[in-house]
């Protein structure tokens, strides 16, 4: 299909008179992609998902699935299926009946139900547990049943509402891999809602970052991480250093402490900006080191060092309001610095994103 899987056009959701859960959202999700809606709690991502599923209706706007307007259609009339955060497995039915539920509701014949259910249980590796009741299964297994129950209906779009939240770390990481793998094999469009940036970054083809009901940025994981277009997005994903600066002459930004640094000419802005720098793009050098050409170099003093095993995080003081956070790998060939040391901090001009909000 060449029509986008899901389109949201001017979608707004208001609860009562004062709560705006989703604010005039426009979004196009491509067919066959793994798309994540990422944001903190209360940002409206779950509400958006529910409007696609049909559990809520927009106050205004259009929700289209493969070009078809959904309007006020109830969820049982929509070609989508949902994997719930709490899995919502029917406790009084066994695994087989849970998975077969949607098919039976659509009056699929018994033989076909049997074939399809068995096949999808194989896919999620639960064939031997078809007779078990949900309460007898572990969290990870329940999650796979929820997945199977949705997938067996071959929906046009699969909606997942923070499905990995209840799992412990190791299991979550395994499931992240499995989900991504499953999606690329099955080819169905996945819309995945989460507040966990690691999940979004590892699994998604594209990410939509939301805050306060608004869609702030849509892009690939690389774009979102490396080229955030707003303070919020820069701050929400990973660690970030945010330096207020003023751009006077083209290509030059003056920091609050008066130091001038070079910025990439790709950024045609002037006036007040914020430089967004990832800690791993900064490098520390001894005070008398010779730094390669083309990099910005600023003097600083180490104010804190935190050891994480595989990396060090250094807080270095530049004479600005806040220290800069620098991430250095814990490698024997790299210099190690102590608190109080005078150092040089350097970065390539292209590593700094300019954010104007």
């Amino acid at each position, binding site marked *: 299909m060449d029509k986008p899987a899901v389109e949201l056009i001017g979608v707004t959701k208001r609860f009562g008179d004062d709560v705006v859960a989703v604010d005039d959202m426009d979004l196009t999700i491509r067919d066959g992609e793994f798309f994540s809606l990422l944001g903190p709690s209360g940002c409206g991502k779950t509400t958006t998902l529910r409007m696609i*599923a*049909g*559990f809520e209706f927009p106050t205004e706007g259009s929700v289209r699935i493969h070009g078809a307007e959904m309007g006020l259609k*109830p*969820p*049982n009339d929509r070609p*989508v*299926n*949902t994997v*719930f*955060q*709490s899995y*919502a*497995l*029917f*406790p*009084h039915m066994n695994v087989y009946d849970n998975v077969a*539920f*949607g098919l039976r*509701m*659509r009056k699929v014949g018994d033989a076909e139900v049997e074939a399809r259910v068995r096949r999808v249980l194989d896919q999620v590796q639960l064939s031997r547990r078809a007779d078990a*009741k*949900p*309460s007898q299964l572990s969290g990870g297994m329940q999650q796979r049943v929820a997945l199977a*129950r*949705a997938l067996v*209906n071959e929906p046009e779009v699969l909606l997942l509402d923070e499905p990995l939240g209840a799992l412990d770390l190791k299991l979550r990481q395994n499931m992240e891999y499995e989900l991504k793998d499953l999606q690329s094999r099955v080819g169905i469009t996945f819309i995945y809602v989460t507040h966990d940036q690691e999940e979004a970054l590892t699994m998604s083809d594209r990410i939509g970052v939301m805050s306060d009901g608004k869609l702030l940025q849509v892009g690939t994981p690389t774009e979102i991480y490396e080229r955030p277009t707003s303070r919020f997005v820069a701050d929400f994903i990973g660690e970030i250093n945010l330096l207020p600066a003023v751009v006077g002459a083209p290509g030059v930004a003056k920091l609050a402490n008066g130091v001038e640094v070079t910025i990439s000419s790709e950024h045609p802005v002037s006036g007040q900006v914020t430089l967004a720098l990832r800690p791993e793009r900064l490098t520390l050098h001894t005070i008398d080191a010779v730094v390669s050409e083309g990099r910005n170099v600023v003097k600083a003093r180490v104010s804190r060092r935190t050891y994480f095993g595989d990396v060090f995080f250094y807080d270095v003081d530049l004479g600005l309001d806040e220290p800069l956070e620098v991430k250095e790998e814990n490698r024997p060939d790299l210099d190690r610095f102590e608190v109080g040391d005078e150092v040089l901090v350097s970065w390539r001009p292209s590593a700094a994103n300019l954010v104007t909000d």
Partner: protein
Amino acid sequence: MSDQTTTAGFFDRLLAANAWAVYLFFYAPILLLIAFSFNDNRNVGIWTEASVRWYREMIGDAQVMGALRNSLIVAFVATIVSTVVGTMLAIALERYRFKGRGALDGLAYLPIIIPDVTMAVMLLIFFFQVFGIIDNVLGIHLDTGLGTITLAHIAFNISFVAIVVRARIARFDSSLEEAAADLYASRLRTFWKVTLPLIAPGVAGGALLALTLSLDDVVVTQFVSGPGSTTLPVYVFGLVRRGVTPLINAVSTVMLVASMILVGISLGFQRNTVARSQRRSEPDELLEDLTVTHLG
């Protein structure tokens, strides 16, 4: 709550002694009554030998059997009607918002907190007034009897059923109903295949409660019954006021054992509840279901 007791040994023994005393207090009268109902002596206090003569006399007593029959009919009808209506009420109050919901909520709680004397008075006046009007306007003369008793029982039972079912619905994960809709089930099929099976223990509990309350009721029934339409508790009540007899002991024992069997069935049903798979600890669930009927 930890598994260990947090009280010192001596103190704990005191508590245990108190518990034993309370249990004795609860059970001794009942057990003694049952025991003495098998006493062959006409003088109730003196034990002579075991016999079932009072039970035989009871079965032969037409008035007792008639009252029993009435009790069963009224209880049966009242339970069925109030369970259906009460369940619908519970669903409406828990799952929907509509105008007048607040008023209905309050109205549904009232029968529970109102003393049965007041309820009896209310319904007596009501039937008296309504029958009077019908007589004047339509010339039809209606009278109190099994019909009015049944209507009265339904009136207070609806609220009790509603409360028990509401408690069960409140513990119900509403995303289950959303999941069913997501999987192409219509409203009706969602109710039939998902909601109802999962609230069934609550509905059964409510029904059992209604049955018990109906079989227990004295005052309300007394006020709205007519000649020839007395129920067993009211009949026994009348007998008791005239004195203790071995016949009453036998009748009482039957009523007692019957109600205890009902309780046993209800508890047994609750144990097999589906909700166990929702991972609630049993004492909590049991307690909540039972407590909630008396809290309102």
